[in-house]
């Protein structure tokens, strides 16, 4: 593939990189404990935690790389990091 002049790129390139494959620990969200504050979504470095119709949050495991920031920051301790089963 030829280089783009001036290293120019269309948006959406990050989507090509499916970082979910990097995951060793997986965040598991407990909606019983969740207060719907959205902190996990705000702080996720991949921007892969989305709000559902009821206001709960869940990660997109295609891109979640298992960094654990959401679990660390969750004020309700509603996110647990569990060993990935591969």
């Amino acid at each position, binding site marked *: 593939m030829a280089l783009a*002049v001036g290293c*120019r790129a269309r948006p959406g390139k990050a989507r090509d990189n499916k970082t979910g494959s990097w995951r060793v620990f997986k965040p598991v969200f407990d909606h019983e404990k969740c207060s719907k504050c959205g902190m996990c979504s705000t702080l996720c470095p991949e921007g892969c935690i989305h709000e559902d119709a009821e206001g709960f949050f869940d990660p997109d495991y295609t891109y979640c790389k298992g960094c654990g920031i959401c679990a660390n920051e969750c004020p309700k301790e509603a996110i647990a990091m569990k060993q990935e089963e591969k």
Partner: protein
Amino acid sequence: MMEITEGSHAIAEAVRLCRPQVISAYPITPQTHIVEALADFVANCQLDAEYITVENELSALSACIGASAAGSRTYSATTSQGLALMFEVCFNAAGMRLPIIMSIANRALGAPLSIWNDQQDSISLRDSGWLQFYAEDNQEATDLHLLAYKVAEDHSIQLPAFVCFDGFILSHTYEPVDMLTQEDVDKYLPKFNPYERLDAADPISFGMYATPEYYPEFRYEMDQAQKRAKDVIAKAGKEFGTMFGRDYSALIEGYRLEDADTAIVAMGSICGTIKDAIDEMRVEGKKVGLLKIRVFRPFPSEEIAKMLSHVKRVAVLDKNISLGAKGATVIEVRDALYGSSIPVKGYVLGLGGRDVRKKDIKEIVALSEKGQGDIFYGLRKELI
């Protein structure tokens, strides 16, 4: 039409006729008269452009990057410390392949503070990817802006360009210049047709990051574009000659060089003084000629080697010094002549505005005949 005017005003007028859509610059001696004149043109509706005032040169060129990426013909001007402050942005502009044109009223770099002329500023950015043109007189200084836009905007090039002219020596000198009309310039320089541009409806990013797997190829592509610029300059320079009678197709120019024993190589306004000195030396029977470098980037190595193939010795004058090494031009001329037995000597002179006279040129020729060189010429011994 021939008019007598200050160099800065002639350049500002030439820039106006190029119809830049965005200008961003920060005033600095000896460039100030140019940007003052352009600000007047915009304020008086003689030029339909955005003039973006900024807090410093780094911002000025950054504004030009945004404007150029958005598809505008852009212009800036600076010198010396101002250019030094743009160092980072210069590499970005070139790496993003944006055809910004910037006038450089060449001036020394501090410390010690000097507002006077030498060419250290633009020479110090020779690796940044910008094309570099150097003017001998105010006619060239004005004409080269048109040529620069034409070459820089060519889709096979897409690189920014410096148009360099000696600060004060040209910028503040009144002399006759053949001023082109808007009609002339419009015929020569069509509207800017960007290869790609920022568009909110169809987003794109410029100058993304490149991992080691990609970075060298980007630098290689820039180097290839520089080399292609030789042919594009030849074509655009010839077209300029056909339309206006002044042919800029050659990157270098010889003066009385055909039968010369000693060739002087130089760049910028000093070439005029050298030509006068050569005429006098010729009367005295000395076979001296000049090779003037008008385009320093891309560097015309092969052209120089060819033009100098018959001479007995070469004296290269540098208004810059790569401290700890030599003047930039002599290093590259010697490289161009690698493998030939022609001795090449360098002479660093005119730093920080030290005046260069005909007698200095004659002395340098005499030194080169004795095989003496690779020196700072004309130092005041009592100060060392």
